[in-house]
């Protein structure tokens, strides 16, 4: 059904364009370049030879251009001499060689010379005293005597400048001019040009200055506003850690492929070459220029895409899902094909919009395609891309502004109306795609923006992306069919064939390919987009700062000296405020209480509970009750204060160094690891126990076990938080218990300090560029054969209890 509607839209667009185009596209007066590429080059070579320059064997770039002013004059006064002499289509031939010499020749559509520009490194050829006069005769032919000399050998930087002018008596306000610059008796620059007053050109009177100023301000404000919006969105999303850049980078291959094709086909170089020549560059600079331009285009698209992706509100994620699938390499899905088909069909309909507007408003003509380089271009790839780029304002609005607005404005029609208004402003004001007449401009821009929005709404992100391709293909197709070009080389039929093939393939694929499940993609997108509002986040961050500093104070500053034992710990908090705690607390009768705890969740709540736990443990260490009693008291306190919303897991070891014995309690915590020096093997110690605060009922005490561990010299006990074993690498693999045990086996004999360091190092290597997603805490205690340990590496620390 959706496909059929799209097809109907395309048909309606094509038919209306077919009917309307001849009426409005008469601007060129039916003039086409009468020459093929080879013929144009031959004429240019002959013209150059007349100036004493031999360009055969050089390389060439050719283009055909439309002069809109001439086109208008020709339509108003088709019989006038100026209109007959100057054709609205001009052919340009640029010749250049390896030495950096370049010659630019401009011809009329039927091959008469209009200008000559010699930019050779060294001037050769015959010098004549009256080179300028001879050039006038060549350019103006039999009309030469009608010209009045207005400048005679005026010295300029370029050379001696002479000029002649001829006011056409038939046409008021039109001036033809021949300008010749000679250097050392040789012509280096000559041109036959003309200018016309506004009335003669049939232009509407300019808007009042105040209105113009207001419109300029308005335009500037809207363009700047959207640019700022994009930058701001990018900045905010950076903080959110969503992944808009990844998406944009992956998506860039689509325009990049177009640019690459244009480069390979030579069309792009053709264009870039002529442009670089106008900037005073030749030779290899053309390539650098072309590449720079292509990179700038890509950068612009990248920014828009990244910002747009970041701004997609939840409700519109399904519109983007096929594009996300596509960039992830899952291109064989029905939705993407459907969107491409819908977008291209919408483009055909939109292509007719300027013609409708011209019909309704009584505009005399429509010049929709900017320039007609296609006429001479061997391959139209770049023009297709140019369609994407020249319509950038509409893209900006459809792909970025509208989604952004829709996420913030409650009523969809309000967002659409605002987007159309902005699109109308930014698309119609700075561009002169249409003859003056503001109403028609605005109407067309509004129609185009609205059309883009509809293409986006029904064809999704890919659809909006494909719309210009359909638009260009349709305009070009109708044009070719109605006004055939004089030679096959001068055709733009490749665009049509390419686009038509693409559309048919998309339509076929939309029937044949399987439907993809886009829900995971949408879920992922919404996850990436989920973030706190800004003000709330800032307030929380300030609070976190305080909490983090307080929390760091809670951890012991160094390891204590325990006779016959050595201890070391490492802690690496993840993010703002973590929930891990470790401590060494001296107890009566020379005992030490060692613990690692993990408070569930993060943030202030967790930090406060850590403080609470630290205080309770310190008090308990002092009073030294039985472990089970202590645990039950802790559980009660946590259950009361946490009210079921948080819990603490805890590994608690009460070490009696003199007896080389420890009592161990595990309240829902990861089972500690015990390495036996004698066997070199590890064992996991997992007495039963429930996390503190999970239940206030009798289940806690009923499920609690304590165990006694006897230490032999060299034995090492490792307590750790789940941040150690659940550390994750970029592939999503967990560090795991086996890896930990293996490291303990390998490094236990080196002592706790080195062991902790080795594990931390290994974890960092494992994690690579991934972020630590949970606090990472490890505490190791080793029995050092009963003797007092060496001083090396141990720090005295104040009594923290």
């Amino acid at each position, binding site marked *: 059904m959706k496909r059929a509607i799209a097809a109907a839209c395309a048909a309606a667009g094509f038919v209306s364009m077919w009917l309307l185009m001849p009426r409005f596209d008469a601007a060129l007066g039916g003039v086409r370049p009468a020459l093929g590429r080879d013929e144009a080059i031959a004429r240019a070579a002959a013209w150059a030879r007349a100036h004493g320059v031999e360009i055969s064997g050089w390389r060439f770039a050719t283009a055909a251009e439309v002069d809109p002013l001439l086109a208008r004059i020709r339509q108003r006064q088709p019989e006038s001499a100026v209109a007959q002499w100057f054709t609205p289509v001009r052919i340009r031939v640029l010749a250049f060689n390896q030495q950096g010499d370049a010659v630019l020749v401009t011809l009329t559509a039927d091959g008469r010379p209009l200008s000559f520009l010699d930019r050779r490194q060294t001037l050769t050829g015959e010098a004549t005293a009256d080179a300028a006069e001879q050039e006038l005769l060549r350019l103006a032919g039999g009309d030469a005597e009608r010209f009045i000399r207005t400048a005679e050998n005026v010295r300029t930087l370029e050379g001696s400048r002479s000029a002649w002018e001829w006011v056409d008596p038939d046409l008021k306000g039109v001036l033809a001019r021949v300008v010749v610059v000679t250097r050392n008796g040789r012509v280096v620059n000559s041109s036959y040009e003309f200018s016309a007053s506004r009335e003669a050109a049939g232009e509407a009177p300019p808007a009042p200055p105040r209105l113009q100023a207001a419109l300029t301000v308005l335009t500037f404000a809207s363009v700047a506003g959207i640019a700022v919006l994009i930058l701001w969105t990018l900045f905010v999303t950076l903080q959110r850690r969503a992944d808009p850049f990844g998406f944009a980078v992956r998506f860039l291959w689509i325009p990049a492929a177009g640019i690459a094709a244009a480069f390979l086909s030579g069309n792009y170089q053709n264009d870039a070459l002529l442009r670089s020549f106008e900037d005073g560059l030749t030779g290899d600079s053309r390539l650098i220029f072309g590449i720079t331009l292509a990179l700038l285009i890509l950068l612009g698209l990248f920014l828009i895409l990244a910002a747009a992706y970041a701004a997609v509100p939840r409700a519109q994620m399904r519109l983007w899902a096929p594009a996300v699938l596509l960039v992830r390499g899952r291109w064989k899905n029905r939705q993407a094909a459907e969107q491409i088909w819908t977008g291209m069909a919408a483009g055909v309909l939109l292509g007719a919009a300027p013609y409708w507007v011209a019909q309704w408003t009584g505009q005399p003509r429509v010049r929709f395609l900017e320039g007609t380089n296609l006429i001479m271009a061997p391959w139209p790839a770049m023009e297709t891309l140019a369609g994407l780029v020249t319509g950038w304002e509409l893209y900006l609005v459809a792909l970025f502004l509208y989604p952004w607005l829709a996420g913030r404005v409650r009523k969809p029609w309000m967002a659409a109306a605002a987007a159309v208004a902005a699109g109308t402003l930014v698309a119609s004001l700075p561009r002169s795609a249409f003859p003056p007449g503001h109403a028609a401009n605005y109407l067309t821009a509004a129609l185009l923006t609205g059309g883009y929005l509809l293409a986006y709404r029904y064809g999704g992100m890919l659809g909006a992306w494909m719309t210009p391709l359909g638009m260009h293909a349709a305009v070009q197709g109708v044009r070719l069919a109605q006004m055939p070009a004089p030679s096959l080389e001068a055709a733009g039929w490749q665009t049509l064939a390419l686009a038509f093939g693409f559309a048919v393939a998309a339509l076929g694929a939309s029937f044949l390919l399987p439907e993809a499940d886009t829900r995971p993609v949408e879920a992922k997108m919404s*996850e990436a987009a989920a973030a706190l509002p800004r003000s709330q986040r800032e307030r929380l961050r300030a609070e976190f700062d305080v909490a983090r500093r307080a929390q760091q104070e809670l951890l012991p500053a160094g390891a204590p000296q325990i006779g016959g034992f050595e201890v070391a710990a490492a802690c690496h908090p993840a993010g703002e405020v973590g929930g891990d705690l470790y401590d060494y607390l001296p107890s009566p009768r020379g005992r030490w209480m060692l613990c690692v705890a993990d408070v569930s*969740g993060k943030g202030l709540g967790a930090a406060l509970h850590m403080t609470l736990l630290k205080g309770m443990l310190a008090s308990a260490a002092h009073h030294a009750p039985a472990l089970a009693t202590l645990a039950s008291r802790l559980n009660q306190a946590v259950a009361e204060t946490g009210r079921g919303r948080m819990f603490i*897991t805890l590994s608690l070891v009460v070490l009696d160094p003199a007896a080389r014995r420890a009592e161990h309690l595990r309240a829902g915590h990861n089972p500690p690891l015990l390495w036996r020096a004698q066997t070199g093997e590890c064992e996991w110690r997992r007495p039963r126990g*429930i996390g503190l605060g999970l*239940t206030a009922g009798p289940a806690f005490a009923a499920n609690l076990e304590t165990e006694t561990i006897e230490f032999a010299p060299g034995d090492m006990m490792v307590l750790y938080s789940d941040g150690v074993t659940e550390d994750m690498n970029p592939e999503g693999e967990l560090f795991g218990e086996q890896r930990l045990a293996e490291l303990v086996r390998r490094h236990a004999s080196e002592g706790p300090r080195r062991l902790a360091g080795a594990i931390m190092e290994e974890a960092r290597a494992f994690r690579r560029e991934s972020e630590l997603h949970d606090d990472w805490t490890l505490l190791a205690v080793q029995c050092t054969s009963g003797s007092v340990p060496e001083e090396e590496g141990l720090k005295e620390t104040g009594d923290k209890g």
Partner: protein
Amino acid sequence: MTRSFLIETRNEGDVRILALKGFLDAHTAPRFEAAIEEELRGGRSRLVMDCSGLDYISSAGLGVFMTFVDEARGAGGDIKLASIQPKVYQIFDVLGFPALFDIQPTVEEAVARFGSAAGEG
């Protein structure tokens, strides 16, 4: 690292089944919390969590179960866990959840338990 988490709900008689899929961690726990809260506000307190698709659970995720289990039991229902993957079960086990929650090997068994015993605790 952001990972996906999905909840699919369905009914089996008067028992509500929430199939959890993906990663339940600090990032996704608020969504899970909201989902359970919605069930309880809607008067559905007999809940079975189908954990067969749950790949990972962090302490924040575990906290959500704790937050609501008393409320569910107070309303005459329960939160039962079913068909937990071994890896995830290990996490529940370390924490002592088996002593506090009714954990069943399959969803059917968990649903059946609502018939035989009206919750625990």
